[in-house]
């Protein structure tokens, strides 16, 4: 699609210059749009499009680790077809892959569920209170503004064996050792950072709901619970779905937090991005690219299913929501 748009001006240049004056405004718009869009499309093609394609190509190659029949190291790249992929699923690293796959899925499911629940609760609380809302909104942005790597360190400090978490709980849990508690630590830290953010987006959605709707329902005898399930939730659904989708995509590629909080190459928190990063940092680019491609495919499938099952047209709904907000403000 990008190329269609980019090619447009070039294809027409000779004729276009001559007949510029006779152009309809509509066609002038098109030309201008192509001109204005091309820098962004070019940058995205270069720094996202090219790497994804090159990565896929890379995943079909291996380099310089093999010995030939005479015991010499084979230099340079060698085409190995789908070997890197078979190695992922069935090789001796298959366990590591399925572990990382499970961790990634587990983190995605638990954190998104928790942060959505906590975020919605936060939004409802903030929507109730009138005074102090500005302070809370500012406070809510603090976890978001702290770099993930720094918050990883902060939580590592809190989860020390003699740290604040254990002091509060009066327990001796080894959070940052490589065990199930480490998963818990990552989930707690991730939910802390992102649930306020969901809260913020849902609050924005809540503020769009006209007060009368709720009042009418109350007059008709709907309980608070019914009002929440049957009025509030359906009305904030578009905003919530977009937030959840993007949170989901973000957790699926999680790296900084577990890497800093627990460490790389730790079974209990290793995610697909971490495993791929580890391969790349050991210069096994082919294998790293294969992991990245598998992750990419997984993300695409989940995103597709999400959009299909929950919201037919996320982009359209988001745009509508933006439009509504614009009108509400004006």
């Amino acid at each position, binding site marked *: 699609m990008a190329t269609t748009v980019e090619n447009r001006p070039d294809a027409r240049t000779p004729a276009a210059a001559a007949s510029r004056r006779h152009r309809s405004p509509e066609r002038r718009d098109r030309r201008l749009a192509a001109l204005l869009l091309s820098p962004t499309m070019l940058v995205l093609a270069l720094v996202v499009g090219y790497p994804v394609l090159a990565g896929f190509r890379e995943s079909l190659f291996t380099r310089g680790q093999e010995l030939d029949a005479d015991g010499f190291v084979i230099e340079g790249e060698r085409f190995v077809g789908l070997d890197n992929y078979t190695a992922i699923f069935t090789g001796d690293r298959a366990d590591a892959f399925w572990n990382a796959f499970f961790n990634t899925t587990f983190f995605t499911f638990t954190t998104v569920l928790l942060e959505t629940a906590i975020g919605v609760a936060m939004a409802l609380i903030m929507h109730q209170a009138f005074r102090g809302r500005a302070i809370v909104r500012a406070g809510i942005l603090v976890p978001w503004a702290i770099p993930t790597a720094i918050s990883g360190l902060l939580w590592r400090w809190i989860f020390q064996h003699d740290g604040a978490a254990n002091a509060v709980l009066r327990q001796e849990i080894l959070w940052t050792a490589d065990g199930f508690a480490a998963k818990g630590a990552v989930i707690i830290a991730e939910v802390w950072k992102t649930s306020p953010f969901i809260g913020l987006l849902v609050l924005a959605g809540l503020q769009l709901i006209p007060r009368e709707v709720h009042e009418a329902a109350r007059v008709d005898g709907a309980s608070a619970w019914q009002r929440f399930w049957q009025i509030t939730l359906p009305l904030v659904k578009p905003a919530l779905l977009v937030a959840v989708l993007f949170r989901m995509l973000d957790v699926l590629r999680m790296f900084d937090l577990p890497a800093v909080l627990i460490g790389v190459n730790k079974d209990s928190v290793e995610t697909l991005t971490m495993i791929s990063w580890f391969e790349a940092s050991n210069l096994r680019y082919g294998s790293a690219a294969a992991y990245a491609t598998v992750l990419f495919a997984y993300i695409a499938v989940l995103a597709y299913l999400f959009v299909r099952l929950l919201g037919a047209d996320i982009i359209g709904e988001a745009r509508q929501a933006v439009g509504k*907000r614009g009108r509400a403000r004006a």
Partner: protein
Amino acid sequence: MTVRLRRALPYLGIALVTVYCLAPFYWMVVSAFRRPQDQFDTTIVPARWSVDNFTAVFGADNGFGRALLNSLIVAGTTTVLTLVVGVFTAYALARLTFPFKNAVLGIIIATTMFPGISQLVPLLKLFTDIGWINTYQAMILPSLGFALPLTVWMLTAFFRQLPFELEQAAMVDGCTRGQAFRKIIVPLAAPGVFTTAIITFIAAWNEFIIALSVVNAKEMETATVAIAKFTGISGHDQPFGTQMAAGVIVTVPLVVVVLIFQRRIVAGLTAGGVK
């Protein structure tokens, strides 16, 4: 009594939310101000306040001043470049009618879906081949891929909110589209662009995996990487006091900016709807 309780309830909730969000951050600040020998105290207020940790951060062997400068250069350049490129695209998406508009918007949003790692592996290889390891451009260019879709999306939302009639009136009065853009849109959109700039800058400032991978020389590390590496990301004996102090130095400017522009940032984030 019950009425009073009912009225107090939302404020109790507000207090709960605030504590939830700020308590860990408070712990970072307090830990940073403890004396190194009191580091493992778990009292809520330090027995004695000290700035020893802060002096340690700027100790010669950490090279932290340089790391801050690197972060500033990388995040600053990323922000400026994405804004320059993004503004035009966002204008086109918000104001012009052309075929494949939804497809273009879809492509731009879809790029936020790519996992950074699938971008990183080939780029890392490419940068090794062309000798870009340990350069600023090796950190800035991949960051554009993350920042640009977000910027375009937010700016498009901002531009859509501006009244189209003003521009049309200017054009009817004889302005060209370019003039209308410069004289009407740019001044009106300035707050939105500024907000987008803050959000983009924070996102770029927080970047970790690229900076970690394409740089192996200490003097080119960004602040987030430098702090995590005070003893290496999987090290054992971590100087937590120093790390917390460094964390405070890196986050407090962001937190201050967030507090000042809180209203605008919320508007930007909700307009963007993502991240």
